[in-house]
């Protein structure tokens, strides 16, 4: 047991190095908070109901699902929409609040969330995911 001091010192050094990112972030006071996302620009995509005026629609911001659900599960919703539109030719979505929307990424989602760099990309980069949606679906110009 003559090497005890070397072993203990080595272990301490190893633990220190492994946990370095934690120490560093504590010391540098890095903010691990969620990225700031661009606010949706407009609300006017949902289909008008009978007797509704377009003005009422524009003044009332709403999404296809509650914010918490969209934050956590928007990809699931988009996949469902994709399957419905492509494989079942079903394009109409009734939201949780009874409003009707067209199941369309470019036609519905991007009408409000048009700023890909400030909205989609910020969170995707933060979460370290790279969805392939925009490889095909055009986000550059949005015609409502």
């Amino acid at each position, binding site marked *: 047991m003559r090497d005890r001091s070397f072993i203990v010192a080595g272990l301490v050094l190893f633990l220190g190095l492994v946990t370095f990112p934690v120490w560093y972030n504590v010391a540098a006071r890095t903010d691990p908070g969620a990225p700031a996302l661009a606010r949706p620009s407009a609300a006017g995509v949902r289909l008008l109901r009978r007797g509704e005026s377009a003005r009422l629609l524009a003044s009332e911001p709403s999404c296809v699902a509650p914010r918490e659900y969209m934050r956590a599960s928007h990809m699931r919703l988009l996949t469902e929409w*994709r399957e419905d539109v*492509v*494989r079942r*030719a079903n*394009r109409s979505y009734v939201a949780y609040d009874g409003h009707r929307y067209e199941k369309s990424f*470019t*036609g519905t989602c991007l009408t409000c969330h048009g700023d890909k760099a400030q909205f989609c990309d910020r969170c995707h980069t933060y979460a370290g995911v790279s969805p*392939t949606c925009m*490889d*095909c*679906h*055009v986000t*550059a*110009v*949005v*015609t409502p």
Partner: protein
Amino acid sequence: MSIDRRHFLGLAGLSALAFAARPSLDGLEGPASDERAPAGTRWAMIVDPKKCLALDGCTRCIAACHTAHNVPLIGERRHEVKWIWKERFERAFPSDENAYTEEALKGKLLPVLCNHCENPPCVRVCPAKATWKREDGIVMTDWHRCIGCRYCMGACPYGSRSFNWDDPRGHMGATPASDYPTRTKGVVEKCTFCEERLAKRQRPLCVEACPEAALVFGDLNDPKSQVRDLLRTRHSIRRRPELGTQPAVYYVI
């Protein structure tokens, strides 16, 4: 009440026999009715070559389709992508079924596109179920699911399917049409009869773009439709009828 061994074994044997014989009784009720009545719509297109040839060198149907659907323009013929294009009559109709009736069309360029067959060979061979026939007859492709094996291209006798050998985004204008997706490298694509427009009760783009109204689109299941009227009154031919694919694109001559 008690039951002895002999009786029990007999009952068990009878039960097993009855259980095994059950499936054979299903056949007695008559064949399962798979064939549904032709309900709903069955989309079809009629090409009138005489009207099409009236405007020499017109390619407006192709331009309208390819621009709106973000079809890449690739110079190299081996890699080109096409949804609707012009083919010489002899190449489009190689079987030469009615040699003298079709004499006037020899050497002429006719518009060809996916035939949206009643028996689509492409659908039979797709291992990913990425292409299938909808109830309204449209042969659809799910580009999300396509694995790019190109079996469908080998199966299609009309060459209606194109493979993206390269990223198509590099072969179109700087800003692709925003309301239709592009495709990616490694995906097979073809005409969809403008199903995204049909959903909005609009006619396919090529039909709307034709200045001579040489393309007619409609429902084959509706006896009063224009397509049925044309098929009733004019002689029509289809591409490669001997293959039994039953194309939904007719050429009236």
